[in-house]
């Protein structure tokens, strides 16, 4: 009897002991099973795009640092995050949680892009597609680094993925010039690898035109006027092949039906009803009872509202101050209308894309570069395409300096609330003087860069020294 029971016990132990302790993940994919097929390669690069539309980048954080921080936007009644108010008022510091999230998410995106760049070459798949995917990853890595280097200056340059805890994670900051070199290299490679257009279910991916346009913007920022002009011109000259052009009416550019249309060069993509919607609508529309949830957080300043030339069609298309639905009408202080999606499932889940580069921007970039190169005459052609569409008289007979100022205004009216204003003011060296002139008492010279998040400096002291002034 004892022996029998003994055998039974041992049997139980042997039978069940082996497998019980193994971890058998069923609800997620482990890296060992991934990066094997063409589908994996596509999914891997899709994950990099995911960062573009995340709250850490173009679905929240970038709005504050690029527009709220300027004379275009002020914090409305709905702002309940102190960090946003700090950015609005230039009292932000290294503990600012919006900067924190922006830094974190952008580096997450860079790591995801690095995963693609490291792993996808090892997958045996269609070579053209493989090159395109690598081109997309490099385009996105360049976009992320371009944002970082403009916002924070010297940042750690990482071009391979973080593979294990044994890697050296305490990286140092790379001089901005080297970061720019990498950005230009990535965009140059992307420009080669990416196709002229995307079709059907690939609509929204980075194209050759997007790479060239972004490269133009990089050169413009670096004041490489001729390179900037050349790249912008390549885009303009290939407008036919790339399907680029201006819509007849300014407002057409923001209709959700036109999101894949001729004016979109590269955008953060959103769609309503599939949990991939944009939050911008709720943040821009007023507190109300008939449109839906409105935060009234991202509010146009009186300064920009008063800055328009009479008759500017863009002012009508950009703002609204009354709304009617089901027989009820409400009126309110002017709010931004660019991101209004009447068909949205709800106001926090709208379909509007957030434009990163519009074709109008390319025309203005080219005009700016040409003016700086002394080719003001040529520049009029392009800036006036924009003005004509806005139903304004063309510009003529301006000095180079006056043209420069007129162009800045044109950029402001044309591209407001699209994440350009702060960058434009900084690269033209006018941020501090402009805001100070408009009554911002807190702004200091060092505010042309944001502080590196304290959290990362605490974890990695190699990120010291902090940016000047913080």
């Amino acid at each position: 009897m004892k022996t029998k029971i003994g055998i039974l016990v041992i049997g139980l132990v042997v039978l069940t002991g082996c497998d019980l302790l193994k971890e058998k993940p069923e609800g997620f994919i482990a890296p060992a099973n991934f990066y094997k097929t063409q589908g994996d390669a596509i999914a891997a690069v899709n994950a990099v795009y995911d960062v573009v539309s995340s709250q850490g980048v173009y679905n929240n954080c970038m709005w504050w640092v690029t527009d709220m921080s300027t004379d275009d936007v002020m914090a409305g009644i709905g702002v309940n995050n102190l960090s946003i108010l700090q950015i609005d008022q230039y009292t932000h510091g290294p503990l600012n949680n919006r900067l924190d999230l922006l830094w974190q998410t952008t580096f997450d995106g860079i790591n995801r892009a690095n995963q693609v760049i490291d792993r996808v070459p090892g997958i045996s798949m269609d070579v053209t597609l493989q090159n395109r995917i690598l081109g997309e990853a490099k385009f996105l890595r360049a976009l992320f680094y371009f944002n970082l280097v403009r916002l924070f200056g010297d940042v750690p340059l990482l071009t391979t993925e973080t593979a294990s805890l044994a890697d050296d994670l305490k990286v140092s900051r790379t001089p901005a010039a080297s970061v720019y070199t990498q950005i230009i290299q990535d965009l140059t490679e992307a420009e080669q690898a990416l196709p002229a257009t995307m079709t059907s279910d690939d609509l929204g991916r980075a194209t050759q035109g997007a790479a060239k346009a972004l490269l133009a913007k990089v050169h413009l920022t670096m004041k490489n006027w001729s390179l900037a002009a050349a790249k912008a011109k390549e885009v303009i000259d290939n407008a036919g092949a790339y399907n680029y052009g201006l819509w007849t009416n300014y407002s057409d550019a923001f209709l959700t039906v036109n999101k894949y249309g001729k004016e979109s060069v590269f955008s953060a993509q959103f769609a309503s009803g599939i949990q991939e919607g944009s939050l911008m609508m709720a943040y821009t529309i007023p507190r109300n009872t008939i449109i839906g949830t409105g935060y009234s957080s991202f509010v146009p300043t009186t300064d920009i509202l008063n800055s328009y030339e009479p008759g500017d069609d863009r002012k009508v298309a950009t703002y609204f101050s009354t709304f009617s639905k089901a027989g009820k009408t409400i009126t309110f202080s002017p709010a931004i209308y660019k991101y209004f999606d009447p068909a949205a499932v709800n106001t926090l889940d709208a379909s509007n894309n957030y434009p990163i580069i519009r074709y109008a921007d390319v025309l203005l970039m080219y005009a700016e570069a040409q003016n700086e190169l002394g080719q003001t005459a040529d520049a009029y052609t392009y800036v006036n395409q924009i003005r004509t569409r806005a139903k304004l008289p063309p510009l003529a007979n301006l000095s180079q300096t006056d043209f420069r100022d007129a162009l800045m205004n044109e950029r402001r009216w044309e591209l407001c609330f699209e994440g350009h204003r702060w960058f434009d003011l900084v690269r033209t060296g006018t941020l501090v003087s402009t805001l100070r002139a408009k009554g911002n008492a807190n702004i200091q010279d060092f505010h042309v860069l944001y502080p590196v998040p304290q959290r990362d400096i605490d974890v990695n002291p190699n990120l010291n020294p902090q940016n000047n002034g913080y």
Partner: protein
Amino acid sequence: MKKSLPIVNAVLTIMKITLLQIILSVGVSGMAIASAGLTFGQGILDNVLSINAENKKLGGILEEIEGSAQVKFTFNPKTIPLDQELSVNFQNTTLKEILDSLLQPLSVNYEVSGSYVILRKLAEGEKAGLSAAIRKTYPPVIVVSGTVKDEKDQTLPGASILEKGTLNGVSTDASGKFSIGILDEKSVLVFSFIGYESQEVLVADKTEFTITLQPDVKKLEEVVVVGYGAVKKSDLTGSVSSISEDKIKLTPITSMGQALQGRAAGVQVTQTSFQPGGGVTIRIRGGNSIQGGNEPLYVIDGYPTYNESGPSLNPNDIASIEILKDASATSIYGARGANGVVLITTKRGKAGQSNITFETYQGVQQVRREIPLLNATEFAGLVNEANVNAGKAPVYTDAQVAGFGKGTNWQHEVLRSAPIRNYQLNFSGGSENTRYSISGNYFAQDGIITNSNFNRASFRINLDQKINSKFKIGNNLTLTRTKSNDVLNGVGETTSAGVISSALQFSPILPVYNPDGTYVFQNDRGTIIGNPVATAREITNQTTAVRVLGNVFGEYELTKGLVFRVNLGVNTQMNSTDFYAPRTTLRASAQQGLATITDTRTMEWLNENTVTYTKTIAEKHNLNLLAGYTMQGADSRVVTASAQQFSNDVVQFNDLGSASVANFPTSAVTDWGLASYLARVNYNFSEKYLVTLTTRADGSSRFGAGNKYGFFPSGSVAWRLSEEQFIKNLEVFDDLKLRGSYGVTGNQEIGQYQSLSALGSSGYVFNNKKAVGYQSVRIANPDLRWETTNQLDIGVDMELLRSRVTVTADYYYKKTNDLLLNVTLPWTSGYASALQNLGSVENKGFELAINSYNTVGAFKWNTALNFSLNRNKVLDLGGVNQIFSGQGLAKIVNSGVLQVGTPLNNFFGLVTNGIFQTGDNIAGSAQPNALPGDRRYVDVNGDGAITDADRTILGNAQPKFIGGLTNNFSYKGVELIIFLQGSYGNNIFNANRLWLENVAGSNNNSTAVLNRWTPTNPSNEIPRATASAAGGANFVISRAIENGSYLRAKVITLSYSLQPGVLKTLRLKNAKIYISGQNLFTITHYTGYDPEVSVFGQDNLSMGTDYGTYPSTKTYLMGINIGL
């Protein structure tokens, strides 16, 4: 079945038979037994029966006779040849004839006593005829009878009566009566009952007895349940607190966790929410862990399960709770023992008793206090003042302000008096071989917030069956269904804001309803919150949980003292949460109706195989050995489906398909496994010097590939000084024991798959369609393992003054190493953190429990006191000096900080330093832009500016000490119980205050702001009103950190038990009626709803935060307990 056998131990065992033999004999021999016309008593031998067996062992035959002839054989199994195989065939033969022919050849004599037949092996040479022996017992004997009662004068069924020096015995019947035939008047009767002192009475010439047994005050023979077994209390070497059923039943409780509050030293229980069915958080000897779980392991009737403090276990079923605290006691649970272990034993049937009890109470709950808020006129004044101070126009005209009056009291609108009721019916009892306890429970509690409620229906069946002297089987099975509707408890300043935070902040100027009868939709000042009445009433958030928890066990005695036990268990839980928010609420107005269904299914199993061996060598060396192998595993699945835009609010979550927009469904699957080896040696020499050695090796699926098995040994010694002559000579101590233990335990509560690298899914839009992406979300850590806690415990147990005073005191020191810590990684790596084993935390403390019988006799007064203090300190954080921690609230990102050298649960923020007054040197201060009336902060780092860097530790959520005091007074049937409980030295972060004192006019404020600063009222407490966009909480400020100390009358109960005479008339065994009040008074300086609060529940790093928490209640109850 009233014929249990209270005879001496040697003959308690009935037959030497095994299950296998029974099966074989029934199956093979085809034995048949029939009987008819039974009589009892002395004529038992004339009973006629039939029995037919071939090659069957004597033991089996005797058992068959027992079964059909209603007799009971008693004998010493060592002397009776039970294994002798016999063939018999009797048809309608008297028992006497059968026994004669069966036993005579075996030289076995027999005697009859009552329904017992006593067998005796004849001595060598003793060949006396059987008939002579029978004749000896046959002559009429003296029959004596009587009643056995307990100290409360209630009858004792199942007490045993034995004629001293013989095997002649009976037990009392259901009404405590007995009748026994004895040899002569010189006989001595021994009356005994478990838990009572035995009494010996000389029969003399009396024939009628009323015996009152006194409880055995010496509790040393009490048995204490420990992991995988039970030991005599006197043999315990570890630190274990016991909570008995009568203590548990003192207070009507909804969940097991509440039963622990204030009852045991070293156990801190905090009710995290007063929502019906709400949970508690429990810390045994402080928190060890930062990232891993800190809740103890629960073992319910041998089934280990984590986080069992909730309401799914019916507390009325609990017979006792044991709390294992030191390493000696907990290391038998290895990698799950570091946070302490709570052993729960549910009620089982007792042999010889048949009890039916019915218990019920009905009560009403009310909010303990309301927070005083501004009325409409006062609020309108604040709004205007705030706007004017901010350079804006006033919002309301003076006439409007005056006309608003009191406005809406939103707390009144959402709070109510709510009923609570409980019904418990229990059947228990059993015979020597079969014991049962069957119970049913229904408990229903409405919450004091409109539309919140909880109810539980449960059944329990606990059975024990002794199949033969070697083989026992049994089971525990409980089926529970709970259903609750929880109101939103959110702390956001958004659409998900909870009912209470909304009720506190909503403008009192607005009414509940518009003139057209619809709800006023949302707050019309700055803070975005929905109508709290609509949020409470219109949103459905109901959870239905069905649970099956059960195990079956078998015990087989292989040879004397060696017992093999198998335990198989299952724990299945199915939860569904149905949520619907209609368009009339802010929560779902944008979605035009939002429905979500979440289904969770968990299947867990257990197999434990243990062997115990008990032996006494040379009467001095007492040895108990335990060894075992156990396995436990689980898989669970969660599925969520959600839809929005319903055409109306009729079908809600019952037809998601009728919505126009379907949200993406989600699902997840997890599983885990644990395989363990355990062993324990208990040795004592003369019950004076005691040693326990314990170890467990735990293999867990949660650990990394390189670290699957952890080894957790402990050792303890105890010295019972009271057994030494020199202590005995003092005549002070009835018991005195010194204990010491040291050992290692682990904590594995880190969730599943944390050692593996993982890819997460993400989505992006191409061509308006969702495209799926995969990215790495976690770095692998193959070295991941358990947290290790080393604990030293030194304790003393003593009993003084004839056991009237019992004292237990313990000192402990715990150090936890290899903390499971989400070590912060630089974000530049692409990852926020990685779970690693780094850092350490220490806890040290002192515990004292005193129990005293102040008066005995007719008026009884008993006092029980427990006191504990714990000091906790972070020793190492994996190389960094501090980590911001604690949950954020609106604009506050982290409310706490972990710092080396300080305890866990620090509150972190700015120190307020009064208010800037007119004439102060503001320009020269650290806040040069401030105006008179603005709040002033301390420039901690002295850099001349108030920044994030000036944040400092403002307080800590951990108490300096906690305690409980129960006084129990009784006189005749009247009993008064006063249970006080308290906590001293802890801080509470009252985050409500950040909003209720924000003087921004964006939301309602507390009446404290009536004292706000104005040029004519230079307050130093509340700043001037100003409607800045930054209004509200930006930092944790010291003003929001409050003293959380309290002392409260947790329970006061007055009861009356009916006296025996009345009971007899009513034919009841016992009956008690009582009234009881819970939280009747509380002494505290805390200004929130209740100092017992933790809005973030069991979050280790966010204890003691109050924001929008469900308010606490005062409860008044009336109840009745009846025993049949």
